[in-house]
């Protein structure tokens, strides 16, 4: 369905209308194409129907009144975007969508804060892979006397300690990649699960 532009007699009205529609367009730009279209069609229809009601007001005043009653697009569309974004994120598993969705939903409950922190921890693994590539001798999974000591970067004084050994060797990066992917999958499935609980 194509969005048909409303025609005004006055250029001022036309400009106000266009700028309002533009603001909606920008506000919903992170949504899927069909969701964007739907919101624009809805607001366009609302404005058109409102203008079609009889009034003694001047066209521009009538339009401004209508838009004021509709509210600031950036404000009124917030809950819709938070909802849609989360829907999209858990459907596609795309990390960019996920971060945006979590950020938008932080205000909707403590559990999203927890999810946010867990995703950030996951990001720590990715950083560790980067440090391993830069500094292969000092980064790893270290054991001291056969028990876990450290996952990360070793201090140089410990380097000489014969009781401290790195146990993953060349497997460090593949292991970390695998753990990160699995944890990401589980976390996103949990988020999906949490949303379906909320629904019922």
């Amino acid at each position: 369905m194509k969005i048909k532009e409303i025609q005004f007699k006055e250029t001022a009205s036309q400009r106000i209308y266009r700028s309002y529609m533009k603001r909606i367009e920008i506000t919903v730009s992170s949504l899927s194409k069909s969701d964007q279209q739907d919101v624009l069609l809805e607001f366009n229809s609302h404005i058109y129907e409102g203008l079609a009601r009889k009034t003694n007001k001047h066209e521009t005043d009538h339009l401004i009144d209508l838009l004021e009653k509709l509210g600031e697009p950036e404000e009124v569309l917030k809950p819709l975007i938070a909802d849609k974004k989360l829907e999209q994120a858990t459907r596609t598993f795309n990390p960019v969508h996920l971060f945006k969705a979590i950020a938008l939903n932080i205000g909707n409950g403590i559990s999203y804060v927890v999810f946010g922190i867990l995703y950030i921890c996951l990001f720590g693994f990715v950083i560790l892979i980067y440090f391993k590539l830069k500094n292969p001798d000092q980064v790893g999974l270290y054991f001291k006397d056969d028990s876990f000591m450290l996952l990360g970067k070793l201090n140089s004084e410990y380097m000489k300690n014969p009781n401290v050994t790195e146990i993953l060797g060349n497997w460090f990066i593949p292991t970390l990649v695998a753990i990160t992917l699995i944890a990401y999958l589980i976390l996103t499935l949990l988020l999906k699960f949490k949303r379906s609980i909320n629904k019922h």
Partner: protein
Amino acid sequence: MNIIFVEKWKSQVKKGTLTFIVLNVLRDKEFYGYEFIEELKKLTQIEIAEGTFYPLMNRLKKEGLVTSKWVEQESGIPRKYFTLTETGKETLETMQTYWADLASSIKKISQ
């Protein structure tokens, strides 16, 4: 009397009952957005920030209580009509029962 307290309380009540009110308005008739808001004003004197109506309907749709369809108009600017689903109707009935119980309890204690 503490006017500010009462005003805050009123706005909380409105916020909490908005879905219930919306479902009631949609019970017998389908509406498109602007028409619905007019009807709401006429019936309840409640004025909502009109733009919030659309996110609310989206949520009700996701919950399966409401469906919508676009209907082409001669003007070339289609209307989106909202209707209650069967689940919506059943949900509304349960809400109405709860509301009636609550109202009678409040009546008892406030007499």
